[in-house]
């Protein structure tokens, strides 16, 4: 089922910095990108200021993700305690291992808590939460 938000408590928005701006700009355009060092051919998430391998900032680029992945782990938020009050329980947070190898946290939608399992294939989707906030989420692969 879709995520339901509690209007009384705004969602905590992503903090954009010069180093991750490219990531969130892409999300706004319904694209998921992974930071990549063009020199070392390595992918990083979360994005950062420098490639830790060659220790430079000038070779960092954004590589599009295929959008396919598997559930590596997950949490069912059923009770209010420990959940975020701006999102109505129940909701699922999943750590998705993308095809490209990096792992990314997001919500799983269009599937019940009972259906989620580690290893489950998922695919990318986008949700325009507010008129000025788009988020990437995942649903069960068809």
């Amino acid at each position, binding site marked *: 089922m879709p995520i339901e938000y509690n209007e009384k408590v705004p969602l905590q928005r992503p903090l954009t910095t010069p180093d*991750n701006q490219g990531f*969130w700009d892409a999300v706004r355009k319904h694209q998921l990108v992974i930071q990549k060092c063009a020199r070392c051919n390595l992918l990083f998430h979360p994005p950062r200021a420098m490639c830790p391998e060659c220790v430079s900032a000038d070779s960092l680029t954004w590589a599009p993700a295929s959008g396919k992945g598997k559930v590596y*782990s997950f*949490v*069912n*938020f059923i*009770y209010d305690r420990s959940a975020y009050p*701006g999102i109505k329980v129940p909701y699922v947070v999943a750590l998705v291992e993308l095809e490209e190898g990096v792992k990314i946290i997001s919500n799983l939608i269009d599937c019940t808590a009972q259906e989620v399992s*580690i290893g489950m294939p998922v695919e990318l989707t986008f949700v325009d939460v507010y008129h000025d906030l788009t988020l990437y989420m995942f649903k069960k692969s068809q």
Partner: protein
Amino acid sequence: MDTIKDKAAIVGIATTSFSKNSGKSEVRSICECIKEAVEDAGLKTSDIDGSITETSDAVDEVFIAKNLGIQNMVYFNSLRWGDGSSCALVQNAAMVVAAGVANYVVCYRAVNGATGRPEAPVGMAKKGMWAFSHDLCKQGFYPPFGLTTPAGQAAILVNRYMHDHGIKTEQLGWVTVACRQNAAKNPRALFYENPISIDDYRKSNAVVQPLRELDCSEEVDGAAAVIVTTAEKARHLKKLPAYVMAAAQSAMPECEWMTSYNRPDISRFAEIERVGQDLFSMAGVSPRDINVAQIDDFLAPLVPMQLEELGLCRRGEGVSFCEGGKRISPQGELPLNTAGGSLGEGHIFAMNHIVEAVRQVRGSSVNQAKKADLVLVAGGAGGPASGLILRR
């Protein structure tokens, strides 16, 4: 080259009572606590010339000096990362006294975690929960999806760990029960005279699978402090010294506090493993030589994982090691969190674990282990970590 092994000792200790309302400011709590620790050492507060705490602690060193009559503060520092920093405070103090920079260094934590700090910003910080989000990652990639609490962030790790080792939910709970039973004998603990059984645990409220409410340490009002000096000076003071046989701190690649998800294996705590290796290497002992352990139990399911990382049990066997509670009881082969830990005493960022480790070395714990020559303390599961081996 010389290490700091056995160069320093903890000579004075104290905690306040841990409660849901101390009725005191954090300043008053910590100053009364430090005074008690100083008297425990047979010193005067004006003997203190060094101070180390955590970066988000409520009380700074100059305010402490104003209250305790400290004349010359020659060394002061604050380290990051909450439960992962408490042992590092002592490591730092040991280095400072061994280098002759200061004579008597107080390491302390104070928090009104239950009654909160009125001036704190909205959200979780308002209720007194620390809001240190030094890690920029937190602010982008987790909160918009509703992953905002340590319990939720840890559940991602624990669910994968249980999957990797075929652990069933029914096997959990023994660490929580053990800590509560130990706290029941500790007059200063939040849960003094309030033990629980494994049945109580199994019937209790869930929070996020597989964590139950009882697995999450309570935020309390309280404070804890230790006084560190050189091994040489320690021999002339009031109580049996607890020598710092080894100390270590660690942050490993792709470390994020509670969310080190971009590692090949998230069921592991690379920092706890590294801390363990460095402690045993410095001390020249092995995990088998450890008599008592005080392990970060801010969230109970992380304890078995840490036992594995420290080599105190085999990989994948952390949960079964604790099952039944016998091996980790004060009479068992590895007495664990003998004053109740964070789960039983209250959450004071594992500073109370260090105090209890000293009590065990001295032989003065309410749940005294028969043998406590070597006591291991470790904190910071899920993020930057630190540890100590204290010895008689």
